[in-house]
């Protein structure tokens, strides 16, 4: 009994990690305490790293751990401690529109689950990391993971990658624009 259960989990690790990520996200949204929210976020990000591992994208998994678990969560904790959260407490999560929204969300979620059940993901889930055959030349994508990522970034997806760098710059400029003390 236990063995079959463990075997099932072993076969569906991606599913397990995915559900854990969703659970973490729900904890993030619904917990009243901001610190608990951050912990839920951390849990969710760790589970996503697990999902990456299941798809044998080791490099991405480690990067996810370093960036999110290492950097961003710490940053969030700082913000939570610096900003006084108590004054937002009385604002309820539920408003007059909540029932309608819940019904709409339930219908949408049912439709999406129905679609997933009826089409059940085909082969794409276990393809490790897809790379243009031209780019993958001379590369065992499943083993040489970081090389594959770098080829993706600097050859196949060079343009979006560079646009992304501009987006990050814009985020910085925007933060300065909105927060700078004086403007002339």
């Amino acid at each position: 009994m236990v063995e079959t259960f463990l075997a099932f989990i072993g076969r569906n690790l991606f599913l397990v990690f995915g559900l854990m990520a969703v659970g973490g996200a729900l904890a993030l949204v619904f917990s009243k305490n901001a610190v608990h929210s951050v912990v839920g976020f951390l849990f969710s990000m760790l589970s996503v790293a697990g999902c990456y591992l299941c798809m044998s994208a080791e490099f991405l998994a480690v990067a996810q751990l370093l960036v999110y678990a290492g950097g961003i969560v710490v940053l969030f904790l700082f913000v939570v401690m610096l900003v006084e959260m108590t004054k937002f407490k009385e604002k309820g999560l539920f408003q007059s529109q909540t029932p309608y929204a819940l019904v709409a969300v339930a219908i949408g979620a049912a439709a999406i689950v129905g679609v997933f059940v009826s089409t059940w993901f085909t082969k794409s889930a276990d393809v490790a990391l897809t790379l243009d055959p031209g780019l993958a030349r001379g590369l065992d994508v499943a083993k040489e993971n970081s090389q594959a990522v770098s080829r993706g970034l600097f050859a196949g997806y060079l343009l979006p990658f560079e646009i992304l760098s501009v987006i990050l710059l814009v985020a910085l400029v925007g933060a300065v624009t909105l927060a700078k003390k004086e403007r002339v």
Partner: protein
Amino acid sequence: MSFAAGLWGTLVRDLPLIYPQLLILVAATVMLWPGDVFVPKGGKGQWAAVTVVVLAAAAFLVSRTPSGMGFSRMYQVDGITRGFQYLCLAAGIITVLLSQLQLNLHKDQSVEYYALILYSVTGMLFLVGASDLVSVYFSLELMALCIYILVAYFREQERSIEAGVKYFLLGAFSSGILLFGISLLFAATGGVTTNLADLNEKLALLPASSNLLVFLGILMVLVGFCFKVAAVPFHMWSPDAYDGAPTAITAFMSMAPKAASLAAFARVFGSGFGGLHAEWTAPLAFVAAASMILGNVAALRQQTMKRLLAYSSIAHVGYMLLGVLSSNVPGGVQAIWLYMLTYLLMQSGAFGIIIYLQGKGEGERIEDFRGLARTRPVLAFAMMVILLSLAGIPPLVGFFSKFYLFKLAIEQGHVTLTVIALLTSAVAAYYYLAVVAAMYFKEPAEGEVKPVSGITSLVVGMSCALVLAGTLFGAYLLDWAGTIL
């Protein structure tokens, strides 16, 4: 080594395609640092002139860009790309000109304002040429992120901050939906490609069992785009964001991002999902009809000019979606381009007049237009021409651009939609004419007459003159658009 050499070779080959974007990016970054160090406090308004020059130079570069596809087929330059790039650059220049009055009044000039406009325009230039869902998504984000910040630019005004936060949250949410849709399509086609042309081929070969997944993916991408162009029922953000934003940014939002997103909309659905035309026609037709009806009916009840134009722009997007619906992709895109061009002319003039009347931010109600014909006859005449053209009353240029769109829709067999479009145009004429009536048949309010600033009157004069000139050549406009695109 050979791989790296190959990379360098393709980079050198592809770079000429994006020279305009590179120019703007480099200029904006240099403006922020070190450029701003050398400009004294109080003189930041000088950056406006630099921005206009950079945008005009980029427009020149666009005219010299060779046609072709590059960056692993992520970006494509063709007539459509160039045509919409001109529109976005023109909208950027108009925005910078219109900004001067309000920014000077608020003493809120800064280099970041202009840099953000430049970055946003870069995103648009990438977006109109994006031929891959990944590059579409990233350029869309670059364009939108800058606008979120610009909407909240007057941070000491609660309305501005509220508009920015609302727009940002809803925008981020809709981006999530768009991205989810893209990933579903990516998975459904076997997880190999996001390129639009490849996707179209793969989607045609899919077995019937994965139809639902594809449909869901396309529906989500549709929702994402409808949000970006503010089509009903995804328009909730737009009146608030239009209302709270600095008025020049409102003008910007109603022109440039709409043009760029509609171009990408037409390209993604025309060339990417063109093979599945039957699947997305019904939802998109519903969205178009709802936008026309709700946009025009809601505009009837507005008291402020900015909200009126916000709702009417929702309706105009509904008309332009007729072009996206067309299975004749080049014809649809030409009609959209022409409509967007005339819309840009009229909007820039209308917003110029609003900015003049608005001053520091109080007088933007429709009541403020009362008796304008008495106090400022020239301005009132310009506003009348622009409003009549927006309403699509013949023989003004707005009529011709509507006519081409509706003709195309009828040729494609969307008769019901066209009838709805015609009926709602009549509704639109009512609220536009109400403003004209207020200008000509009501007594002006007491108070001194404000002087007209030079730049604003330049924009208004240009816009009115071009609308009148376009009226003369109305019958040849579509052929002319055909030579450009």
